[in-house]
């Protein structure tokens, strides 16, 4: 009796789902996080020196504690100039940029971040001589934290 309309309805529902998926795909790409980082830190980062501390599983994506530390003596000769932090599964991948001076004493920072879904946090440190170091860490998110 209502098969026709229900089919149409079902189809439009499918389209709606597909549309949402496509929009999500367009928003959250690990590549856009990489692009943002590459635009800031020119060169190929090495492994090491950078540590990310975050919970393995975050029940609430609205405020996930994150600490990023970079090994450095933080002297006039050798210090961390900048630290770029990205989240590769958020609608907007940038999280924060820190610009240090030797007066920072220690390149270790803590913050609370919003994570829309399970994803990887990436940190790239730029030393004063231009060397780059990077590290990443996956955080599983139970309830996403990006409004909606």
């Amino acid at each position, binding site marked *: 009796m209502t098969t026709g309309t229900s089919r149409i309805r079902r189809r439009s529902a499918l389209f709606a789902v597909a549309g949402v998926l496509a929009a999500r795909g367009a928003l959250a790409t690990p590549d856009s996080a990489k692009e943002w980082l590459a635009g800031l830190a020119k060169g190929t980062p090495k492994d090491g020196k950078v540590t990310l501390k975050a919970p393995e599983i975050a029940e609430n994506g*609205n*405020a*996930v504690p994150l600490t990023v530390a970079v090994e450095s003596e*933080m002297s006039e000769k050798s210090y961390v100039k900048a630290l770029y932090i990205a*989240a590769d599964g*958020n*609608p*907007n*991948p*940038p*999280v*924060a*940029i*820190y*610009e*240090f*001076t*030797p*007066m*920072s*004493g*220690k390149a*270790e*920072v*803590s*913050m*609370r*971040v*919003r*994570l829309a879904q399970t994803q990887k946090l990436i940190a790239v440190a730029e030393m004063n001589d231009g060397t780059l170091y990077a590290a990443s860490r996956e955080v599983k998110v139970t309830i996403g*934290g*990006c*409004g*909606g």
Partner: protein
Amino acid sequence: MSDDIKPRLRVPATAKKGEVIEVKTLITHPMENGQRKDADGKLVPRLIVNSLAVTYNDKPVLGVTLEPAIAANPYLAFFVKVEESGTLRFKWTDDNMQSWTAESKVEVS
């Protein structure tokens, strides 16, 4: 609303010369990320605190650029090396170029 926005600091009052002290800051701010919809389904425009600048005796210590991925009431903790007594100054700025400042004295012995 902006009257509710208040910075809070936790900074040690005393330190030894050359000590690296931990500084904890928080500013009560909704950090509207521009993705959220209101009750009528309209997008709430982005309004976040986008920067924090920290100086010690007017010399730059740290600059932070905050993005919408920073949680509401941004809490930021970091370190400062103190060689002499002085004043740590903090300045937060939001997307409307409104700013809030706070300061804390450190006695170095």
